[in-house]
């Protein structure tokens, strides 16, 4: 197979785009497509400070790499979840540090959950939820910490490495269960629609997972190949496999599924009723927006306020010692 642009031997064939490219032209294409996505969805401007959530995986490290090559002010944030199984957290942190050391122009923030809050994610899960729902708890903690760091650091937006396969799988799951609240909000940009809530963007939302993997491999980005041990058997992986079977028979289906959904929403051809959520207010402990009265879910998990503390917080009184 030959590169469409120069005729040299192609290294990557993308049936979804009817396009095969050599190494140099693939890298060029990948970076340009990311820039186009950023501009298409008005994610951020050249002068904005961006916080990239990096996990040590191919998507987040590739994203950080591309944003830096495009000249954006992109710092990284790694959350050490304390997952010791197969040395997962240790290995992923090493990959992130290695990448960051090669990019001194960018700052790397490392948030160690156990050091900050006394327990790792698995320990929190064992203590609070009987070891169950580790992924839900992990998501709660990561969102809280990403938001905290973005606001404290004055970042315009948090950029995550979610790719098209992630988005299409989430969309499929939301459609299968008609989760209209999620469908109303799913998209490349989650705006900051409340003080203290950071803007979140997904510059890789139009990139196939295979495309981001190819970029990482071609650029020699050393990423963690192993999955998070808690991700084994997850629903999202199941949906991704289903969608890949569809894609095999009908190239471009995943992209069309996602982009047509976005377009239908934008043109008003489909509307999803957002569930009437309780109003947001600032958590009495950390100040982050929450729908829960008094304390946000994260602070209730971490600090386990007593009944008296909760009541005091609900009355707006903060004369309780949190030390």
């Amino acid at each position, binding site marked *: 197979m030959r590169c469409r642009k120069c005729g040299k031997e192609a*290294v990557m*064939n993308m049936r979804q785009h009817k396009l095969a490219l050599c190494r140099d032209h693939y890298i060029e294409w990948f970076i340009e497509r990311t820039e186009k996505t950023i501009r298409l969805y008005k994610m951020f401007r050249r002068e904005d400070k961006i916080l990239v959530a990096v996990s040590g995986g191919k998507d987040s490290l590739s994203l950080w790499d591309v944003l830096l090559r495009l000249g954006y002010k992109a710092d990284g944030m790694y959350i050490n979840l304390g997952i010791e199984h197969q040395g997962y957290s240790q290995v992923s942190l090493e990959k992130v540090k290695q990448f960051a050391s090669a990019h001194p122009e960018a700052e790397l923030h490392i948030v160690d959950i156990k050091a900050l809050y006394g327990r790792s994610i698995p320990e929190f899960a064992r203590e609070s939820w009987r070891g169950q729902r580790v992924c839900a708890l992990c998501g709660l903690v990561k969102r809280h910490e990403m938001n905290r760091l973005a606001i404290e650091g004055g970042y315009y937006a948090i950029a995550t490495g979610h790719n098209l*396969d992630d988005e299409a799988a989430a969309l499929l799951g939301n459609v299968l269960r008609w989760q209209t609240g999620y469908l109303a909000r799913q998209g490349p940009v989650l705006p900051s629609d409340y003080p203290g809530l950071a803007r979140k963007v997904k510059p890789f939302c139009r990139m196939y*997972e*295979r495309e981001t993997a*190819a970029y990482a491999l071609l650029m020699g980005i050393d990423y963690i190949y192993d999955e998070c041990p808690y*991700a084994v058997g997850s629903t999202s992986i199941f949906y991704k*496999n289903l969608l890949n079977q569809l894609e095999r028979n009908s190239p471009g289906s995943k992209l069309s599924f996602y982009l047509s959904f976005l377009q239908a929403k934008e043109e008003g051809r489909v509307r999803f009723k957002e569930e009437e959520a309780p109003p947001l207010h600032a958590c009495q402990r950390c100040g982050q927006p929450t729908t829960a009265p008094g304390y946000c879910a994260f602070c209730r998990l971490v600090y386990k306020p007593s009944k008296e503390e909760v009541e005091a917080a609900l009355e707006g009184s903060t004369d309780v010692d949190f030390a």
Partner: protein
Amino acid sequence: MVKLIYRDKEWEVRPGITVKKAVEEVGLLIEAVIPVKDGKLITEDTVLKDGDVIKLIAVISGG
């Protein structure tokens, strides 16, 4: 024979078929892997030769 390696699994397939055919024969989807030979990415229409060792990099992550 041609060796295919995917995560901790290995298979042997006959030479003379394409990478795509070989991937399908072992029950994988080309959409879910990137074939690498001698450290270089190859496209799925590449015809496999006797003695080739192809690493199939899994691309799906999740959770």
